[in-house]
């Protein structure tokens, strides 16, 4: 079972930045991201998040988001996804970074989730 990370933010630069940070810690973990609206504005887009889920080559995904409507669009994209995606209500930067590091170190989902639990803020 391989794990990948998906980052969803209201701002493309935030999504890309968090993905870059996490990738630097876990070079072999597939990390994809979606940020902003379809027309490049600030907001979230189910279409973009679905594309980030589809583009991620891992078998099972751990997804992180910033604010409320990104979660709603992420939840809808997850319902339509053809692979399991878990959404975490944790601090975005710390959560994505921890999950990538732990997935890269070969932990299983339960092990990763145990370390994400104290980062829950939403």
């Amino acid at each position, binding site marked *: 079972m391989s794990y990948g990370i998906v980052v969803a933010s209201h701002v493309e630069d935030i999504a890309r930045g968090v993905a870059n940070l996490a990738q630097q810690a876990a070079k072999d973990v597939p990390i994809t991201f979606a940020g902003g609206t*379809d027309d490049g504005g600030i*907001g979230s*887009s*189910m*279409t973009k998040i679905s594309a980030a889920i589809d583009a991620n080559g891992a078998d099972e995904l751990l997804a992180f988001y910033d604010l409320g*409507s990104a979660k*709603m*669009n992420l939840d*809808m994209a997850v319902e339509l996804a053809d692979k399991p995606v878990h959404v975490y209500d944790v601090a975005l930067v710390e959560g994505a970074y921890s999950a990538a590091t732990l997935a890269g170190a070969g932990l299983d989902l339960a092990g990763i989730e145990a370390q994400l639990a104290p980062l829950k803020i939403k």
Partner: protein
Amino acid sequence: MTELTVNVAQQWLDGFAAAIAEHKDYLSELDTPIGDGDHGSNMARGLAAVQEAVDGKEFANLKDLFKSVAMALISKVGGASGPLYGTAFLEMAKLGDTDSDLGDLLAAALAGIEKRGGATPGDKTMVDVWTPVVQAVQAGGLKQSDVDAAVNSTEAMVARKGRASYLGERSVGHLDPGSMSSGYLFTALINTGVFA
């Protein structure tokens, strides 16, 4: 029971789109002190997409109609309103080939909104309009005064969901924009004459 036909549903959507276009600036104005000021333009863009998807087309049942509406709203509205209104129509679509009772349809839509956004009555969200509206429809009729009272009830509430929640007590004294746009949705429903 109040039956919703495809024909009445299309009139309802036309009326809603017209109301959103008319009150677009007002909705954004409501959204400015307690949100990000784009509710009117977001909804107007979404309803224009809805009209493009359904106008002049024939739909065999409510399921097909509401599914088209939901997909247009989800992909075009943005913000929190896209997933919330989109989910409402998607939940009605799920019932729409077997059940045309408006009370059942709106109750399913409300359950979807609550699940998607996690809001409960009193949080100063569209749920504060949808909840009494669903009750009135299930009890046999919906009046404009029910809708107005529900929308106005949000003014005194402290926001506990969405961007307005970051303002806490400072959100008091402002109408919730999503409740206002939901008010237009239900006024448009009354204006179809479905309860007459």
